[in-house]
């Protein structure tokens, strides 16, 4: 079992880069996957209906759909596989930074997805060859579709965890925490979006065909139009409900005004889609196709902005923490430079002590006067030059004088304790001023 555990921790900039990169990749990948899922599902449904009703226009529509959504192998590669591997990389890096999720798990999801692609390709070429399909071919298509949906469900589960970083430590202990309500809601939300978008695209293509008028029967166009319109309407009515569930299942730390406003924008855009469907119900150029597709692009953008803002909120303090650590490392170049100067080691002993003193101690201590803690010229001589005793105190401070607040445990590394102890003893001995 391999793990991602021994990767370097992320820097704050890399975190932000990964996060925005993720949403950029999703912007191209999800619509592609959506058309594939929506189109194949509809094609299979039409195949079934066509056989029931013995109506060849259903079968023809089913065929045309598959031809459109699985245009070419290179599109599958560019919009399907490459982005997916990138998304996997981000998940592995951000989510499972220190989590021992086994690689077979990831390989398994990828395998399911690849077999989905392969089965659907098979279905598409069989669909293209004949109007009448054997049940076997239809079953191949259905299996491909199910594989795709399963892979997308697992993807959504991981995506859901992205919004709840508090779950990461739990995930390290038990893999079942991979599933969350938020993940399920994201899955349903995107599925509704996929079908709505596919319906919109069907309306658009239907309008185009009407313009071209290449021997397409009015009956066929009517069927396509009806299907596209009903699918879009249904999906658009359902999508906002899942969006509200998303607001309920997101951890409260991930919410913010932006998240609510972008949700409201999605609701208004969905309303606009419904109104467009009713107001422009012509089949020709004046049809709703182009408008609906445009509105769906806006809905998709708003959903991605909603998610991007939520992830940003959820990771806010982690990213700030990393940035602080980086700032601290930058402000202290001595820490890394020190091993490179072995020359004056003996002398740097007290110099290093001085550095530590100014960084850590000087906030509360002076040699000559009381600040927060006592003047060092008063307390250090009590150790009588015994560095070990002083070091023991620095490691584990105890309250000595009730007039002062207790000194916190500093948690310094041993060499810094050693350096500062020697520096204090030296300085107090030689007159007590640095």
């Amino acid at each position, binding site marked *: 079992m391999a793990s991602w555990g021994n990767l370097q921790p992320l820097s704050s900039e890399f975190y932000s880069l990964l996060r925005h990169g993720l949403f950029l990749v999703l912007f191209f990948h999800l619509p592609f996957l959506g058309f594939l899922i929506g189109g194949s599902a509809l094609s299979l449904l039409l195949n079934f209906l066509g056989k029931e009703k013995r109506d060849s226009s259903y079968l023809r529509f089913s065929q045309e759909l598959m031809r459109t959504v699985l245009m070419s192998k290179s599109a599958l590669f560019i919009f399907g596989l490459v982005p997916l591997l990138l998304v996997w990389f981000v998940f592995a890096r951000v989510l499972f930074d220190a989590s021992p999720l086994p690689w077979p798990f990831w390989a398994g999801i990828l395998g399911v997805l690849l077999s989905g692609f392969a089965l659907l390709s098979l279905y598409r070429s069989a669909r293209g060859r004949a109007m009448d399909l054997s049940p076997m071919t239809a079953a191949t298509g259905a299996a491909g579709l199910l594989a795709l949906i399963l892979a997308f469900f697992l993807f959504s589960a991981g995506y859901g965890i992205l919004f709840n970083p508090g779950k990461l430590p739990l995930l390290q202990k038990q893999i079942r925490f991979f599933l969350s309500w938020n993940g399920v809601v994201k899955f349903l939300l995107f599925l509704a979006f996929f079908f709505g978008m596919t319906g919109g695209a069907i309306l658009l293509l239907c309008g185009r065909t009407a313009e071209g008028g290449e021997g397409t029967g009015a009956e066929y166009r009517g069927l396509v139009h009806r299907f596209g319109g009903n699918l879009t309407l249904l999906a658009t009515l359902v999508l906002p409900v899942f969006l509200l569930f998303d607001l309920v299942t997101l951890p409260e730390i991930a919410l913010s005004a932006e998240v609510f406003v972008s949700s409201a924008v999605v609701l208004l855009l969905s309303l606009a889609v419904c109104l467009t469907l009713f107001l422009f119900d012509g089949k020709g150029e004046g049809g709703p196709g182009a408008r609906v597709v445009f509105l769906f692009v806006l809905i998709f953008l708003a959903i991605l902005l909603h998610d991007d803002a939520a992830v940003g909120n959820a990771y806010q303090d982690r990213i700030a923490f990393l940035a602080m650590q980086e700032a601290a490392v930058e402000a202290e170049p001595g820490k890394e430079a020190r091993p490179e100067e072995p020359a004056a080691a003996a002398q740097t002993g007290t110099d290093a002590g001085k550095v530590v003193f100014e960084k850590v101690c000087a906030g509360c201590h002076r040699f000559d006067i009381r*600040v927060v803690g006592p003047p060092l010229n008063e307390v250090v001589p009590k150790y009588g030059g015994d560095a070990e005793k002083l070091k023991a105190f620095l490691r584990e401070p105890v309250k000595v004088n009730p007039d002062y607040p207790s000194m*916190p445990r500093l948690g310094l590394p041993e060499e810094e304790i050693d350096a500062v102890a020697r520096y204090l003893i030296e300085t107090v001995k030689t007159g007590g001023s640095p």
Partner: protein
Amino acid sequence: MTRSVRKPAILLAVTAYFGVLLLIAAGLWVSWQRAGIAPDQPIAFPHTIHVSKLNLPCNFCHIYVDRSRHAGAPSLTTCMSCHRAIATDREEIKKLTRHYEEKRPVEWNRVYFLPEHVYFSHKRHVKAGVDCSECHGKVGTMKKIRRVGALTMGWCVSCHRARGAPLDCTTCHK
């Protein structure tokens, strides 16, 4: 004829449907704001400085965290032991000093609530090695404290399950 009557009715129904959904979204927004995940405090105490810059351990101020159910807000004496001398010219420290001199405790606004029927002990959790940040987040990055852990029952139980802590009802509901 029927179509022209039906169309406005459908449009109205759809608009009303989305209107209701928008109202629900607005309601969720208001309830999220009311829940106050980062309430204003009477004195703007910055954890950023005390935790990240000064590296004070949590129990330097929250002295009861490993010996009581409650972590406790520090007494003003603890604050004043340093702030008698440090940053005395700042507005917030002057407020603090006034409280101290008038022997008036600071009424901090609660960030984390548990209902009365839940028994929770900080001591237990600290002793079990749960890091403070697992529930409270990286407070060192917060100028104003935000609630990080959800403190819902599912949230508690998930962690208990993952860590193999007791799942018996009476563990938390005495």
